[in-house]
């Protein structure tokens, strides 16, 4: 038994060491596109501070407990001829004191937690930019009531400006989440939820639905662009303008196809159609991605998408319209011309 | 030696209580959570219906009060049935059991009549509005409990008639009684919360 005991302890130690070394050597990269630990907003920073506070405490407790466990295993391993150990039933003062110690640690964690809960859920000032987020199977609509802008799957925000997101949706529960900008807030049918964020660093961020919402939950992504003041204003101006009229021949033909096909039943293009079941396409050409962030907006991808939406996004509600290749090509050219 | 009492009565255990009785108490505790969840659902949807009819368009308080009185009376007859059985008065035990079952059946028929009126007269169905859904589900499950109780009581009565139930089996009747009183108490809660509180 002793030999086994030593072996066991050694192996347990090795595992822990290997894990530790794994963390150090491989150098886990934290500054990735959906990292939750590189906050780029006020909300994110407050959350992150609490996360780090709890992490240090729990890491300390973790090391103490695991080290204690290993030490006890090593020190009290069975040796040949060992007598029956003393039958100790407990030690009340010791047990009371560690109960209190745990409770104290929780106080240290609990107080800032509650402070941040209330801070992050304050009623936003009237000056906050309002964005209505509509979560649908499986894409996002973003409405800016103040700016009279409706767009989809790509959210544009001004840096340093507090934004009040009002979240609602018509079908199932989704969750609005941009990891680098802060926590999630669920989109619950028949309710309007709110989350208030203040982005602090310009850049492009990735968002994703974080509540399982059916077949294409994995494909319900979006992009967030945080602009400086000038960039924001120019984006707003571009969106408020009427969609550009197609110029080249292919795009003109595309517009005709769009207007005559089933597209108009679901999609809005200002001045052309007024469908609301699918994303607003008025400024489709100004977006970098399509199909809720799963593809880059290139002519080939737009064609592939139109040809068979459900192939790229299982369960997609948009049907395959059965267009001929040249029709698809024209349609793609038209859509991409809508800057 | 140690298990001498086991030979005496296999159902009496460590606590001196009958296993079946302890089991019934635990079941009733569990059933409290069941009705608690249903009542909670009803209350959380109270006043949330998007259209009528609402509770006070349909409720017939005199009728339901009579139901409540009938069910309360049945608790009394249940107690009398058990007492008679314990005194080996099989004739009256049978009568009281039957009376309890009949009162229970009366309650169920009242409920059937009530539901029928709501559906046919007031146009309130399971899918009319949230009130319809939560009302029928809650009271329906209570009615199902009463129905189950009536079947149970009738079964006991039938056993008694066939000479297969006597004073030695009073625990069987006592357990049915526990269940019956519980169902009665639940009705008082439902009657108060749903019918009486505006």
């Amino acid at each position, binding site marked *: 038994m002793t030999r086994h005991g030593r072996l*066991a302890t050694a192996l*347990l130690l090795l*595992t822990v060491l290997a894990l530790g070394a794994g963390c150090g050597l491989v150098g886990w990269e934290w500054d990735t596109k959906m990292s939750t630990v590189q906050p780029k907003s006020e909300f994110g920073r407050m959350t992150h501070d609490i996360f780090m506070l709890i992490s240090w405490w729990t890491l300390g*407790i*973790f090391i103490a*407990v695991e080290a*204690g*466990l290993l030490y*006890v*295993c090593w020190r*009290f391993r069975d040796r040949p001829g*060992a007598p*029956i*150990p003393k*039958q100790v*039933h*407990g*030690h009340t003062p*010791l*047990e009371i004191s560690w109960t209190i110690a*745990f409770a104290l640690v929780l106080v240290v964690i*609990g107080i800032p937690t509650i402070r941040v*809960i209330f801070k*992050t859920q304050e009623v936003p000032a009237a000056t906050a930019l309002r964005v209505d987020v509509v979560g649908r*199977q499986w894409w996002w609509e973003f409405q800016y009531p103040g700016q009279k802008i409706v767009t989809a799957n790509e959210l544009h925000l001004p840096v340093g400006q507090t934004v009040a997101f009002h979240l609602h949706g018509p*079908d199932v*529960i989704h969750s609005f*989440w941009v990891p680098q900008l*802060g926590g999630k807030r669920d989109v*619950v049918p*028949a309710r309007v*939820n709110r989350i208030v964020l203040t982005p602090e660093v310009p850049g492009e961020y990735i968002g994703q639905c*974080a509540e*399982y*919402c*059916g*077949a294409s939950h994995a*494909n319900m992504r979006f992009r967030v662009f945080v602009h400086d003041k000038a960039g924001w204003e120019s984006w707003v101006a571009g969106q408020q303008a009427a969609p550009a009229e197609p110029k080249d021949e292919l795009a003109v033909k595309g517009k005709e196809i769009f207007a005559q096909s089933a597209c108009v039943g679901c999609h809005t293009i200002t001045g052309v159609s007024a469908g609301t079941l699918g994303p607003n396409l008025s400024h489709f050409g100004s977006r970098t991605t399509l199909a809720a962030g799963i593809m880059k907006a290139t002519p080939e991808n737009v064609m592939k998408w139109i040809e068979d939406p459900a192939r790229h996004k*299982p369960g997609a509600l948009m049907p395959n319209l059965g267009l001929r290749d040249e029709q698809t090509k024209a349609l793609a050219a038209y859509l991409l011309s809508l800057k | 030696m140690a*298990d001498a009492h086991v030979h005496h*009565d*296999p*159902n009496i255990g*460590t606590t001196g209580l009958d296993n079946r009785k*302890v*089991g019934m108490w635990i079941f009733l*505790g*569990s059933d409290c*959570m*069941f009705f608690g*969840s249903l009542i909670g*659902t009803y209350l*959380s*949807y109270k006043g949330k219906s998007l259209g009528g009819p609402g509770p006070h368009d349909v409720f017939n308080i005199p009728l339901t009060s009579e139901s409540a009185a009938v069910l309360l009376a049945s608790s009394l007859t249940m107690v009398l049935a058990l007492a008679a059985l314990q005194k080996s008065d099989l004739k009256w035990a049978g009568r009281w059991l039957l009376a309890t079952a009949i009162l229970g059946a009366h309650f169920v028929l009242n409920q059937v009549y009530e539901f029928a009126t709501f559906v046919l007269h007031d146009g309130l169905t*399971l*899918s009319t509005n949230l009130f319809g*859904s939560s009302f029928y*589900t809650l009271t329906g499950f209570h009615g199902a409990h009463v129905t189950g109780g009536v079947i149970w009581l009738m079964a006991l009565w039938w056993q008694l008639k066939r*000479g*297969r139930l006597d004073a030695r089996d009073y625990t069987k009747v006592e357990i049915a009684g526990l269940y019956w009183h519980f169902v009665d108490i639940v009705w008082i809660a439902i009657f108060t919360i749903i019918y009486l509180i505006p």
Partner: protein
Amino acid sequence: MATHAAFMPGGATKEAAATGVWSWITTVDHKRIGILYGVTAFIFFLMGGIEALIMRAQLARPDSDLVSAQTFNELFTMHGTTMVFLAIMPLSAAFFNYMIPLQIGARDVAFPRLNALSYWIFLSGGLFLNSSFLFGAAPDGGWFGYTTLTTRQFSPGHSIDFWMLGLQILGIASMLAGFNFIVTIVNMRAPGMTLMRMPVFIWMSLVVQFLVVLAFPAITVALILLMFDRFFGTLFYAAAAGADPLLWQHLFWIFGHPEVYILILPAMGIVSEVLPTFARKPLFGAPVVIYSGIMIGFFGFGVWSHHMFSVGMGPVADSVFSIATMLIAVPTGVKILNWISTLWGGTIRFTSALLFSLGFIAMFTMGGLSGVMHASPPVDLQQTDTYFVVAHFHYVLFGGSIFGLFSGFYYWWPKMTGRLLDERLGKLHFWLMMIGFNMTFFPQHYLGLIGMPRRIYTYAADLNWGFWNMVSTIGAFIIALSILVFIVNVFKTRRSGQVAGPDPWDARTLEWAIPSPPPVYNFASIPTVHGRDELWLQKHGDGHGGAPVPKPAPASAKDIAAIHMPPPSYWPILLALALTVMLSGLLISYYQVVLGGLLTLYCMFKFALEYHRPAQEAH
């Protein structure tokens, strides 16, 4: 309802002699039912494991198309449902069944036929749920089945029906078992076994059974409302009619959080038996461990909304549920220190059983600590529905429950089979599992922190998730290998394993006072109990100079012949079948529901009156 042993002719020898399939189908012996639970649950555990392996294979690389989105959604739904309801709960039930009567010095559970009924209903429910694969309608709404996704509008077809009815059937089985075990523990203890002399495994079992009988009604109601919505057009989850989809979440988690403790407390009980045995010391601060278990169970009902911090409950509710959740960490942490203190000063024998218990402490600690992180709502808003949470609860439910259950297997296997499992293979199993487990789930903490959401069947390559997903997948296959080692061990030692004898570990509690495997009546003479570690007291005394307590007087052949055990019955399996016919009728035809209902009623009568004395015995 109950079995009247005294009215039965025949006796112990009748079933003891019986073998063959029929004897298993009609058995009411808690030990056999325990084995049935164990074997069935282990098969379901393998199925859930295979589902996990397919998912891991899919996620090993970005943009993978090994399985379709639909299949992946079915896999994670069935993996979760299977592991919770068909693997961990019934594996625990195997130990409850086998060990509760043995540890409290009883000859059977309070209601032996009800016990058989629980098993058969559980089996029907498991088969019913998994039969959905055959009909191409595997559930795909997640194990948590959030409405409105699971309403008829967004989930037409039968997949959710299978899930909903399957869970309903399984819930009945769990609750019946719960009533039975509570009565057994409360009312069937050997003389002298006061509540505080009950082994800690018994205490944890008791808390679990209370959680089962009080928490399952909530999910029963949630499922009934869903069933009515889907079949009868009620509006409980219809947002368009003004319903609140969060009603489901509240009801589900009022069940769901106690469920977590239903899954972990049995393992805590096992560890509390294994550590003292192999350290040769009593459990340190046993009363505190017991009270902590009760506290955990009690608080478990007050924290359900910590699964819902992201739904927007408002800061007050967030704060209350956050504090309540943190409070649970106190009794949990206390338990861990008590276990380590149990080892302190002992003479520790590193058997496979002990290694798994040590693994439990080491891994569960980690799961508990990461749980403290998302007890804080701001942190939870980042971590919920990411792989960080997946890592967290696998450290609790795999690193905790599964390690604890395997510890129980190695510890009690000789009691159940009469033969020891091979220790070398056992240690190989442990180390492979330990390495595979940490390889699989430790990187998932990191993946969650860099934003990988749960329940996605694919992910883009530019997010840096690929490498550690690959590591995680390799780890999962190492776990599978370790399970294979266990299976090999079982088959290898079935015939040729070392014969155990009654007490191979120099253990402390009553089950080791009787032969392995125990005779059908368990105890030839019912012991009188003097302390929590009764057998140890009989063997070694209290260690403080007290003499060993007396052993029960040996029973004569005549005494043994006079022991009455309940004879076999086929009504449990018939009743379970009738019930399944009734509930599955909802998918086929209402005529079947009515027919099944009548059959159920008929079987209930036959069940209830099976041992009622015949008429001529009346006065």
